[in-house]
């Protein structure tokens, strides 16, 4: 029954977008964390999506392949009173771009809504199928 695979595909997409939203929340929360557990500034986390086959069917689902750390350089901010400042008074800030993260958040939330909608449609169609011939 291939219509049930729609639930697997859309459900997987909901999970993937949830993980992405989680990464966005972590990045935004740590946008000003000058020191993490390793003493270095926080590095932005980005999720990488990957298409994945769904039990031998032609359609492909989606999953998170890995969560990578953003390699772009961090911001240098002049703040001599900060205890983390170097001898010239500069502090290395995390490489989180708040604007990028907000865009990421909106995109993730729209994708989440769309996939929830897809599930709803599939559910309606299956329920109609159950009442076939009545």
């Amino acid at each position, binding site marked *: *029954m291939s219509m049930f695979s*729609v639930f697997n595909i*859309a459900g997987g997409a909901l999970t993937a977008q949830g993980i*992405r939203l989680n990464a966005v929340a972590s990045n935004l929360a740590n946008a000003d964390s000058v020191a993490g557990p390793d003493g270095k500034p926080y590095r932005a986390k980005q999720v990488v999506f990957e*298409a994945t086959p769904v039990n031998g069917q032609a359609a*492909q*689902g989606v999953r998170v392949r890995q969560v990578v750390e953003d390699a772009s350089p961090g911001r240098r901010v002049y703040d001599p009173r900060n205890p983390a400042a170097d001898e010239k008074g500069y502090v290395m800030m995390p490489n989180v771009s708040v604007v990028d993260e907000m865009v990421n958040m909106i995109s993730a939330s729209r994708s989440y809504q769309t996939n929830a909608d897809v599930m709803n*449609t599939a559910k309606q169609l299956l329920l109609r199928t159950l009442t076939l011939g009545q």
Partner: protein
Amino acid sequence: MVSKIDNALSFQSQALGLRAQRQQLLAGNIANADTPNYKARDFDFSTALKAAVAGRSNGSLALHTSAAGHIRTSTDAIPARLMYRVPTQSSADGNTVEMDVERAQFSENAIHYEAGLTFITHQIRTMMSAIQGQ
């Protein structure tokens, strides 16, 4: 007698099966809207239906198996060639999913599925009233 009823309903049931498969494919496209390098796929419904009614599965993506050790691909192969959608606005990450197109096709396909269900229901009702003679 049973085969006659089966024949009467087989066209609509094949159409419904293909609609369900297309629904799944479109759900996969929507799920992968944010996957880099994912190419949106679809199949031509009328070609697939013609092939399914004629009992052919030419152009399907199922692998030809000639020995016991060969890996069998999907058992319910779509009887038409899977094609890649041509994007009107391509994106930088190689993804060809256009959400408006996919959503439109998804809704259209859902309505066609419901229409197919209605057709079958009315066919069954017609037969029921012929049997009961009331």
